[in-house]
């Protein structure tokens, strides 16, 4: 089972690195918002898989909070950008 954790962790880690690359390179703020959402999703997935493989439920509330509050940042940023480009 530890091999599964290693493989899945490697895949999630690669996705997170790709999202970080897109956050750094841009080119626009919306790309960064989308990439930050992907980074958040890969962190969430990795926490869940680690929990399933290592047979504990300690990070289940973290999963819930990540799923709940990921939306606030992206919606507020997208909304702010829309207002800015209108004026």
């Amino acid at each position, binding site marked *: 089972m530890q091999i599964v954790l290693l493989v*899945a962790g490697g895949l*999630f880690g690669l996705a997170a690195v790709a999202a970080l690359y897109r956050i750094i390179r841009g080119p626009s703020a919306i790309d960064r918002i989308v990439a930050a959402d992907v980074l958040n999703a890969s962190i969430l997935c990795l926490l869940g898989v680690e929990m399933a493989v290592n047979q504990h439920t300690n990070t289940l509330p973290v*999963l819930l909070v990540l799923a709940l509050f990921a939306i606030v940042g992206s*919606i507020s940023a997208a909304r702010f950008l829309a207002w800015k480009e209108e004026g």
Partner: protein
Amino acid sequence: MDWFALAQTVAEWAIAILAILAGIMSLAAGVGLIRFKDTLTRLHAGAKPQVLGVLLVALTVVIAHPTLPVMAIAFLVAVFQLLTQPIGAHMAARAAYRSPNLRKDLLLADELADDVQAADEHAGNADGTDKDGSGSRSAIARLLGRF
């Protein structure tokens, strides 16, 4: 035959397969984020694992701990993800369509532009001329402000 041991083995294999599927999905999103050319296509690549990958992971958690509290929280995680991610993707796409970085040449169909033109004509600008572009801009604002 030891049914309990058999069930445990099946659960372990299911966890392994689901976890690696979720990982492949996340990796596909990452590759899409790096390789695709403009914001709308990157959004398309990025939004999939946020829903499907998280659903698979919630399933692995439930398989590993088939108890009622864990099921309840995993269900909540899945429901919140299904509720919020489409909203976030919609808002990002809305902002991306209006941004100057939109690659119109990459679009095969632009139905929003047709709607904007129809709204322009409906607003009394019947001949379709638009001297400084302010008319279509405010029409976009009207259409999108209704989101």
